[in-house]
Structure formats: structure tokens, C-alpha cells
């Protein structure tokens, strides 16, 4: 988490005026892809859990646990197996930033 904060600050510092546009569009698209089950902006209606506001570390750990089967699931193992660790980090960063 510390490192990710450092990188965020570094990004903001280095890029100065354009930082407002410095959106990780790949992460934004991947996160939007989750919305059809987990709700727009990761805010779910009904039994499927929300993703908005989850801590990045927790999100990444859960995705890895789905992937290796240590957290049982109906659907999520199939999704977790299709993404890379780096993508878990990107998605976790994205959802943690949603209030």
C-alpha cells in the first residue's frame, strides 16, 4: 500500500498539470467490465458483493485465493484464472479509489 501511494504521488508530481488526465484507461475498462455482475462502479444490488471501496490488498488477496481455490466460489474462480497478478493490482487500485 505504501509503495502504491508513493507511485501515485510520483505520478502526480512528475506529470503536474496533466495528472488530471492521467487515468489508467486499461484499468478503467477492466473495472467497467465487472459492472454487469457487481453493479455500476462496483456498487451491487442484491446478493452479489460490491467491489467499490475494497482495500487494494484485500482485493488482490481474494482474487488470488479464488484462483488457487483456497476461497471457494461459484463463479469467481473462473474469472480469477483469466487475469494476471498485475491486472489484479490494477483492478484493486481502481476499486479502492471509489468512495
Amino acid at each position, binding site marked *: 500500500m505504501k509503495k502504491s501511494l508513493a507511485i501515485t504521488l510520483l505520478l502526480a508530481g512528475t*506529470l503536474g498539470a496533466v495528472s488530471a488526465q492521467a487515468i489508467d484507461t486499461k484499468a478503467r475498462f*477492466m473495472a467497467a467490465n465487472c459492472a*454487469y455482475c457487481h453493479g455500476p462502479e462496483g456498487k451491487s*444490488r*442484491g*446478493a452479489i458483493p460490491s467491489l467499490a471501496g475494497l482495500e487494494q490488498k484485500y482485493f488482490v488477496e481474494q482474487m488470488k485465493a479464488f484462483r488457487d481455490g483456497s476461497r471457494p466460489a*461459484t463463479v469467481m*474462480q*473462473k474469472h480469477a484464472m483469466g487475469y494476471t497478478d498485475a491486472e489484479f*493490482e490494477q483492478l484493486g487500485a481502481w476499486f479502492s479509489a471509489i468512495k
Partner: protein
Amino acid sequence: MAFDRREFLKISAGVTGAASLGALSGCASGPATGGAPYKVVVVGAGFGGATFARYLKMWEPKIEITIIEPNANFVSCPTSNEVLAGLNKLEDITFTYDHLKKSVDNWVQDTVTSIDTVGRNVKTAGGKSIAYDRLVLAGGIELMFDKVEGYNAEAQQTIMHAWKAGPQTATLRKQLEAMPDGGVFVMSVPMAPYRCPPGPYERACQVATYLKQAKPKSKIIILDGNPDIASKKPLFLAAWTKHYGYGTDNSMIEYRPNNMPRSVDPVKMMVGTEFDDVKGDVINVVPPMRAATICEMAGVRNDSSNTWCPIDYRTFESLTVKNVHILGDSTLTNFPKSGSVANNTGKMCAAAIVEMFNGREPDSAPVVTNTCYSAVSETTAIHVATVFRYAAAKTGPDGKVTPASMVAQKGGGISKEESELEFAYMESWAKNVWADTLGLPG
């Protein structure tokens, strides 16, 4: 760790590139409509078109979006089989476009009558002429009634397809309600590819749910044009066996593969296949389908059989007609034709157009998912889930070209077994995908 150093450098480079290209964006995108703003016209506000429009506006508010949609309301195909079971009412799956209308610049309730892809202009039945820089066709499917002998306008008053949710769904439910106990419900499955691969088999389950409780002496005959159950086969067979006596002398469901309906007779209430004539009290024939008529108008329904629309997976732009993008069920892809895929490919296309509008390259390796639930009883459901990754076209050492595709990743597949938990997830999925597509408030 959020990014490693290499990724960080890549991202910084991307941002720097974006900043320098920003000033050129007007030139790079080249508006054809004679100046700002850049105009995107969307035809069809189903899962694909509506989602596309919402996300495009969110991600690039400078683009002017017009939606042309003939219907006053959105009726969801997903969960419409539950209306046949009496678990849902048509009102439960019908939504106004009020929220979606607020997310776009122009809303035109009208039918498109012609498309000029050279002059970049769309004409409507209501006499409107609408210019575009990019056109997005999200019209779903066209049903080919002429492929089934006798399935004319008059026959369509008696024989429902109910493969586009709406009045057809309500009528089919009424027909089932009016059917006597001991009656026969004959339904068909078109040849793949068709909209919603598990849909017909779910329909059999949902009609059986109703008949089991209300008219237990009745039968369901499934005439499948395909050689076998086309989706979630072991799970449907297990559900038919568990709930509806499949495999016993008393089975409510009779499954006949390789039985393509060739003709219908609404007076004798018969469906003809290559093998025999099947009589039913209620007949539900889903004709073969192809990409929506608007795709033909734009000249993009141009695969080898003029049935579907070939697209570039990175942008959903037609492979042959510039500035025309096609979404959802109309496309020729290796995705299943599902509401989930339509919703997500709407976002893929929106993301790509945002990048191009801003003078950047669209994502060269998109990753996207599909998750589809089917209700197999009044309390249980099953799913299929897959992650797809883009793979570019390849030329082998022999010179043979493998076209670009979305590769299903290892680990995807179907449920272990039906469950009540998945029924709850299915209901939640429906609420979320409706909200995501139409911009419904929480």
C-alpha cells in the same frame, strides 16, 4: 505494489504521449459533420447500444451522442423465460428509457430506413436526416420467418417466437395458461449461432416448472435443429432428470436433436420437420436469425453467408466499412450472443472510440468476460463464465493466416451443480446489468 517500474514507465510514456497528442485530437479524429462537436449516432438501445452510449458519455463528455431507438421501453430478454413460468411478470422486466435519455444529447424514437456510409448520414421513417462521424449499430437480431414454410404474418398471430421479449412473451404465457392439462407444448431451438445459447433449454425448464405445478399431465417436445444440447448440457440434463422426470417413462420433457422445424401450420397446429409432423396445443417456433436489418442497410452484414457482421475486436468497427461499428448479437465473433457480452462489448467499443477521438491507439489486447445464468427450476440456477483475451491474426510458416480472435482463457466453464445461491446471484446479476445498461439509480 501497484505497478512495477517497467509498467510505470509505460504508463508515464502513455500519458506524455497523450498530452502531446491532445492538441491534435481534432485533426486526428477528423469530424465529418462540418465542425465540432464530434457526433456519434447509436441505433438501438438494448444491452449493447445503451451501455455503449452511457460509457462513451462518461469517458468522453465532449462527444455528442444521439440514440435512435424504435421502442418506447426496454424489455429484458434475460429472465423473460421466468415470465413464462409465472415467476416474473412482464412489468418486472420492462423499464423506461428515462434515465438513459438523461445521459445522452439527443434521443430519437424512430425507425431507421436508410444509411449512407459515404455521406455518413442516417434517415428515419419520421423524416429525420442525422449526420454522424461514427455510427454504432446495435440492433440485435432479425428473425428469418421465410426460412420456415407457412410462418407468415397470419401464422405469427398464433405461433409465438418470444425470442425478443415483449408482447410475444406475454402472449406465450397466456397460451400456456389456456392450455388444458395433458396438452403438448412444442418448442424449437434454432441452429447455432443464435441469440442466447442456453435460452431454449432454460425455456424448457421454466415452462416445465409451471406445467409441473399447474398441469402435471402435460408434455414439452423440444425440436432442436442442432445435433445436441448447445449449451450447459450436463447441467440441463441433470435438471431435467431431477425436476421433470427426464429419462423415465413419465418425463415431462422429450428432447429431439437434429429436428429443424421446416414448416408450421397454425390451423392444424403442426410443426413439420424432415422426419415428421408434430402436433401441439401451444407452438413456440424460433426461426433462424441473422444480424439486424440496419446492418444490411449499412452494407456490413457481409460475412460469407451475409448473415453476421465481421468486426475488429479492438474497436468493433466493421472490417470493410469505415466509421461503422457493430455491437452485440449482430456481430460475427467467437463470443456467445449474450446480454452480458453485448453490455461489455459496448464498453470495449466506447473505450476504443475514446482513445481514437483523443488521438491515441485503442487497447491492443483487450480482456473481457462473459457470465450467463439460467434458471433451471423455480429456486435454482446454473451459470457459464469465461474470460476472453484478444489474440492478433497470425501467419504460420506455411503462409496460412489464423484470423484474430478472442481466446477463451483456461479455467472458464460451467457450474458444478445447480444451486439456490446461483439463483440469488442470477437475480442480482439481472438488477446490476439493467442498472449498468440503462443508468438506473441504486
